[in-house]
């Protein structure tokens, strides 16, 4: 997406492009907030939504992401920069991203709390601790290859 002559950034004092409000901004604002109000009405009036619990979870996830998850990732990124050899940093970054996503998704599968008695043998049929380990091993194997390639490229460039 790189262009030969990138457009200049907005001059000092001029609002960023996002602040220059055109037709779409106002249409989006009206239509979007109309839908938000429609949804809030549905959440507050339809049976079974339990609004206090729902909004607690909704806001709570927001707070957990901004106040806990992202700061932790920032710290982790700093540690990686200081500890990991330069040639392996990209591979480690990729591995950490993929591993974090897999663990986030698989977290409920690793505990006993999902194994209630509602269904037959087809439900949660695997040893998920083992399978998660296999997936993570595959991810880190690929990342190790990436790091190796990067190391070899670095050596050949040095020569």
């Amino acid at each position, binding site marked *: 997406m790189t262009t030969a002559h990138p457009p200049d950034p907005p001059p000092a004092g001029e609002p960023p492009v996002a602040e220059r409000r055109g037709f779409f901004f106002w249409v989006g604002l009206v239509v*979007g907030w109309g*839908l*938000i109000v429609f949804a809030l009405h549905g959440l507050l009036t339809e049976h079974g939504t339990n609004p206090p619990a729902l909004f607690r979870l909704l806001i709570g996830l927001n707070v957990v992401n901004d106040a806990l998850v992202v700061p932790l990732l920032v710290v982790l990124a700093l540690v990686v920069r200081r500890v990991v050899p330069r040639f392996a940093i990209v591979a480690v970054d990729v591995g950490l991203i993929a591993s974090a*996503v897999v663990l986030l998704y698989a977290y409920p599968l690793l505990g006993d709390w999902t194994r209630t008695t509602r269904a037959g043998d087809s439900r949660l049929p*695997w040893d998920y601790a083992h399978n998660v380990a296999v997936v993570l091993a595959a991810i880190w194997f690929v990342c190790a290859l990436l790091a190796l390639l990067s190391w070899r490229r670095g050596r050949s460039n040095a020569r």
Partner: protein
Amino acid sequence: MAAEPPVEAEEGEEALPRAATLVLGRSKAASERVAARFESPLHDEWVASWLGIALGVAFTVCFLTGLLDYLAQHPPSWFHLPARPVNLYRVTEGTHVVTGIATIPLLLAKLWSVWPKLFAWPPLHDVAQALERLSLIPLVGGSLFLLFTGVADIDYWYSPMPFFFPTAHFWTAWMVVGALIVHIGAKAATVRTALARGAADSPPAAAAAGTAPRVGLSRRGFLGAVFAAAGVLVLTVAGETVAPLRKLALLAPRNPTVGPAHVPVNQTAVQAGVTRAAVHPGYRLAVEGNCASPRSFTLDELRALPQREAGLPITCVEGWSAAASWRGVPLRLLLDRVAAPQGVAVRVVSLESAERLYSSSVVDGAHVADPDTLLALELNGEPLDLDHGYPVRLIAPDRPGVLQTKWVAKVVVL
């Protein structure tokens, strides 16, 4: 980091008392110090724009397929999912779940890329911008809520959801779509500009700027890693509904080949509390309501009626599906035996307690008329297993699994 609009801020400050101006000035300085600490090139508008586009596409697909699936499961009077093609519901439900799973890394990466904007100062300029920024709460919170509850649902983790999942998920999706429209309207110009500017740390751009490529992931590398993570999740989960990926489905919560007659069971007869009634020798299937000759049928009488075999998938709202061969009495044929009018809908009632959720379901006229809508007696060449709904269960094209009523006791013509 988004650039501050100094002129607007200063103009606003002129009208403020001196103490407030001092506070604003210090807060702005503090905000700039925080921003300086997060000068990673991954926190920029080019990355955020591409992730935003990918998320916009993923959310649109998720919303449309989810809307269809919700209406199929809780049909209002004006909505009927067509009975053909027979895999329509299977495809929309599978697409919904797989796209939702792929969205997890996209959303987290997007939130990471724009996180420093949390400290932008002053946070608000005017009412319109306040409404735009306020919409970020339902957008971010709602998106995280949808993914969290969606994953919890397919992983059978119900304890963190003290609400009825489909309804809460449905209305929150509307809220997120509304907030997304506000966000797109506000950021469309930014995205256009950022994409036109390109990735500043790409090798040609770095060479042009006379700077060395930075250590660690480039913007493009970061996007590649995020999309690769989405790919890993899809490959290891989608096999519960996409048969060719079955061997890779290490993280799928369901194995669609395990169960009586190689078809999964979501609710057993014991759990439904129907074991005794289902195997009782005096079992009769009653057909009544809007028909000239209401009557009941013994199991032998049902077996003696003309049978039809149909290859139909059973698709669960939790995302798995399995193709199977069903054999039984076409529902329309049974209605002809009781002289029910053409084009009618029916209510199929289970032996389960009427208080149980989905203990009965309505089959609309189009589905009743479809020759593949069966009161099934056999599955994959074997007599119907008790856990699959013995003695008789409903199976019809394009219906959610919870509406394929098992242990049928009664068919009421409406």
